[in-house]
């Protein structure tokens, strides 16, 4: 396990270095930046940020050196420190975590029910629903759910927040600042739950549709396997056969497919974040590329902020793939971590 993790860590660092360096050079040699990092030498900020690849490489190296101290994540724009990626990272991480939990439990429940009652009206209805759910883009569902919330809130229903992250706002320059009422920890957590529930549901629905179908199909294969017949022949109740014998063997495929789909979930989370104003990586991305609001396309690019966002996206996906491999190995003893 340790050797596996070490090898994956080396690979992850190599991928991250390659991706961030390539994108940094591409951006810095083409775009000017209205913002500068603490490392940007005077006079090279505009335009472009770096004239040649070696110049860009030098700026990139400065950025890398600032990572351990956290300095690389602070970018100065108009005298104000911006691009505070950490709060955005936390907000998006919370959304992804809540979504993963909802997808995991809902897809497990629906997929198992569909497989255990294959061919029944339940199965047919779930199949229809899963195809419909799978086809609704998460950003569209988010818009619809937000519309519904807005309507019901006019009739006194205020269980869920319609927009924003509790006590945290994002300025147009990409800086977070405290806003709104703050209470105790329990109150704050409750507010976060109010803010996260509907966005997480909007993000989950499509993936529940897709992954409940995957689970159903792998469970059907397991339910027809000789070891399941043996379990039934031993007189075990059908519930035990399904849950303890068949489902356990299907979990490896299901978990692996779910975690490998994490890139798609991450991409959709950016859009849902924007709809509900959660001030996560999606909101930060729009602020940093500077193309939204005026309606005239991107005006400038901040390579330092873009690097951090790209690296964060890659980090989420790489972490998910490592977890997928460990999960598969733990569910299926025949699989070795290499």
């Amino acid at each position: 396990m340790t050797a596996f993790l070490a090898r994956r860590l080396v690979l992850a660092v190599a991928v991250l270095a390659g991706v961030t360096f390539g994108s940094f050079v591409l951006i810095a040699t083409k775009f000017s930046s209205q913002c500068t990092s603490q490392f940007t030498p005077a006079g090279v900020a505009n335009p472009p940020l770096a004239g040649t690849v070696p110049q860009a490489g030098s700026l990139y190296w400065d950025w890398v050196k600032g990572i351990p101290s956290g300095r690389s994540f602070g970018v100065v724009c108009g005298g104000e420190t911006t691009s505070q990626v950490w709060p955005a990272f936390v907000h998006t991480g919370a959304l992804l975590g809540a979504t993963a939990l909802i997808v995991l439990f809902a897809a497990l429940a629906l997929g198992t029910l569909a497989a255990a009652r294959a061919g029944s009206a339940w199965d047919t209805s779930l199949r229809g629903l899963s195809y419909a759910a799978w086809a609704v883009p998460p950003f569209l569902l988010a818009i619809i759910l937000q519309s519904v919330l807005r309507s019901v809130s006019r009739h006194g229903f205020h269980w869920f927040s319609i927009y924003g992250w509790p006590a945290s706002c994002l300025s147009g320059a990409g800086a977070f600042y405290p806003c709104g009422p703050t209470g105790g920890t329990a109150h704050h957590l409750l507010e976060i739950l109010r803010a996260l529930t509907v966005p997480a549901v909007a993000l989950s629905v499509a993936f529940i549709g897709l992954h409940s179908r995957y689970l159903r199909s792998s469970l059907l294969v397991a339910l027809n396997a000789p070891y399941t017949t043996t379990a039934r022949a031993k007189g075990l109740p059908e519930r035990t056969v399904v849950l303890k014998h068949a489902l356990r063997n299907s979990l490896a495929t299901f978990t692996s497919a779910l975690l490998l789909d994490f890139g798609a979930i991450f991409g959709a989370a950016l859009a849902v974040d924007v709809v509900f104003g959660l001030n996560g990586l999606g909101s930060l991305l729009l602020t940093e590329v500077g193309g939204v609001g005026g309606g005239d396309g991107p005006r400038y690019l901040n390579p330092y902020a873009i690097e951090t966002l790209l690296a964060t996206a890659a980090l989420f996906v790489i972490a998910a793939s490592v977890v997928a491999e460990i999960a598969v190995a733990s569910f299926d003893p025949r699989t070795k971590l290499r």
Partner: protein
Amino acid sequence: MTSARRGLAAQTLRRFARRPVALSALLVFVAILVGGALAHVIAPNGWNVIDLSPTALHRAPSFAHPFGTDEIGRDVLVRTLYGVRTTEEVALAGAAIAALLGVIVGALAGYYGGWLDAVLMRVSDLITSFPAVILTLAAIVYLGEPFPHDLILIFGGYMWAVVARVVRAHIASLREQDFVDAARALGASDARILVRHLLPNVGGTILVAATALVGQIVLIDATVEFFYYGLPASVAPSLGNLVTAAVQVKFGFTSNPTPGAGSWWIWLFPGLVLVLILVCVNLVGDALDAALNPTTARG
């Protein structure tokens, strides 16, 4: 070989035709595509006809305007038809280019193996390990405001990796089979073995992967347009920018939104067509997969 292939194709078609839901989905999908392709015939005046008369401004659906009109009197049905045309151009052409590149890369990697396989598959791994939305956003931001042909090249330029992986796996398993050894023993060149013997056997896999790509491109394109970075609505309407533009008019994105006046028809109808396309593509893709692989179908 030819008659066997014809037999397999006929069997696949028969299995596909036995699924009435999938068949209906295919018909609906084709109808939507034909409607989009004939948009200029159905509405020859184009998608940007403004009618500022009070009876045409911001009207809910009616017989005269089945999808209603927007805030400057443009017919939402006409704009949706042209939106379908743009979206289908981007999705079909993008998927075709991605499939072609993916088949070439996957076939070379799967057939030759060794360092070529390792290099091509690591590149493919790198591409597919990134969220597609981020890759597309990054490419659009870098290249500037896109036109449909730019989007086609962007999608074709990285989505080949998805096809390459499945084609590579299939070719790698087929190259060890007796019919390939027999062809080689008869003096067939590598190119002939690949083109005449291996690729025809991978046709089903390619078809299923390309169908899935169409759905993925429609979805990613719409999501990117939601970020205001896809095709601008001033260049051509697409399903994604129609939904997004209407929602932005209603809510605004960068500040806490205020309740809008309920002009739901402006975004709901293009949104429903978008969902309908995705439902049809998913159903057809699954049914094709099931027809080609009856023992491992997702069902």
